[in-house]
């Protein structure tokens, strides 16, 4: 194990119905600082469950997750502290509809990090400016397009200054013409050295931005490697058949 590992996953399992359904069946994985890990695989392969397990939105049935040197799967861990350092972006954005964009972005820094409202708002506006939405700061989520909502969701997570960003199919719920603007924000984030774990069907993004690609099937990692290895020289039959079915 290298000393650089930010997240170390050992033998992660998630079973439902007393073991009848095995969403994750023994996953081992290390994620280093600055890596952009792209997780691909057919639906139902466990890739979303894997991502959601990383910040314990899914409680694993078995296995260990070490984040920043701390075993977050241990029963005594204060998971809230660790979640602050793991930003998460959801498929359906999950912005808070009763708050303005600025309210969405400042509530956690103010309430959890005890930042002053002014400080939190300055930071939020700076981030909004970077994604081109500064003029929508006082709008409500319902007034934004899907692409705008997702960009806000990304910067909302960034307001907590996370060490890793988890993306759960961030572009799957978007109209096709809005996918680009969200991927652009993610590319920028990657180029700034943010550690990212991205579950996605955007193979173009995986090729271009990913430093490593993980292929999930039937709850385990079937194959992993650099984008070249995965897309040019797939080894397993499963991956070959998966790639033959998706548009690249």
């Amino acid at each position: 194990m290298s000393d650089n590992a930010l997240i170390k996953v050992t033998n992660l399992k998630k079973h439902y119905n007393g073991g009848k359904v095995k969403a994750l069946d023994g996953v081992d994985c290390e994620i280093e600082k600055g890596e952009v890990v792209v997780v691909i695989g057919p639906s139902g392969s466990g890739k979303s469950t894997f991502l959601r397990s990383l910040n314990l939105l899914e409680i694993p049935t078995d296995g260990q997750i070490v984040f920043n040197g701390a075993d977050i799967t241990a029963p005594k861990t204060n998971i809230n502290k660790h979640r602050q350092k793991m930003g998460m972006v959801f498929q359906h954005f999950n912005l808070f509809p009763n708050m303005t964009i600025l309210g969405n972005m400042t509530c956690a820094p103010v309430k959890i990090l005890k930042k002053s409202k002014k400080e939190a708002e300055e930071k939020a506006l700076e981030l909004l400016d970077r994604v081109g939405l500064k003029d929508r700061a006082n709008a409500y989520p319902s007034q934004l397009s899907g692409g705008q909502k997702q960009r806000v969701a990304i910067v909302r997570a960034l307001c907590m200054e996370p060490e890793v960003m988890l993306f759960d199919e961030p572009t799957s719920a978007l109209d096709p013409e809005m996918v680009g603007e969200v991927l652009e924000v993610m590319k920028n984030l990657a180029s700034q050295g943010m550690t990212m774990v991205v579950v996605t069907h955007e193979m173009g993004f995986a090729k271009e931005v990913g430093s490593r690609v993980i292929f999930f099937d039937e709850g385990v990692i079937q194959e992993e490697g650099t984008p070249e290895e995965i897309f040019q020289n797939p080894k397993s039959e499963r991956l070959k058949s998966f790639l033959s079915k998706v548009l690249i």
Partner: protein
Amino acid sequence: MESFKMLFLELKELFFELKDVFILCFIDDNRWEWLVEGFVNSILITVLAIVIGLFFGIVLAAIRSSYDKNEESLKLRGGAGYILLKILNGVAKVYITVIRGIPVVVQLMIWYFVILVTQDNDIVVAVVAFGFNSAAYVAEIFRGGIMSIDNGQFEAGRSLGFNYVQTMIYIVIPQTIKATLPTLLNEIIALLKETSVAGYVGIMDLTKAGDLIRGRTFEAFMPLIAVAIIYLITVVVLTKVFSIIERRLRKSER
């Protein structure tokens, strides 16, 4: 011409008759004061019962929805927390079942003649009876509201680092209140009208006041219509106030 005059005289007679009945029912012996006292008591019982109902109802809803939402993860993590919550959830369920299964007037009599038989202040007994009755209904309204909020809201809150209680307070509950406001108004209106059975244990509420006037004057129409109109106006005013609040809250989303 002659018939018009007859009609006019008849109307005049009717008017004076009504005036006499009105004076008999409300002015003589200052009987209108009974209605005022009854109205004040009805409102007092309703308001205090709502306070108890809301507070206790939210506690019950918090227990029930926490259990429903976290059953799986708590079971996995195990420990005393899971067992405690399971017991509390069981108690809450039994409470809600019992309260909803018994007519409120029977509950009121049980409180009055059995449990709080030493309590001298009848209003207190009524507040307790109606408050704890209402709590069961409020609990289910809030639980439904909490469960109706998309789980993604909850997950977004948790993923930002809020703990369970903070997520509830800052993110879920504000949205729940907005969603449950119309149903909550329904419960308050129902409660106001339910307090009309307080007369069963001799409490001078609005209904009882009207009934007392009827018994004293042998006039049924005037006092009962007066009582009906007072209830109606109160409910209309309540509805108006709530629709203003609702519109204010909704403005934030448009």
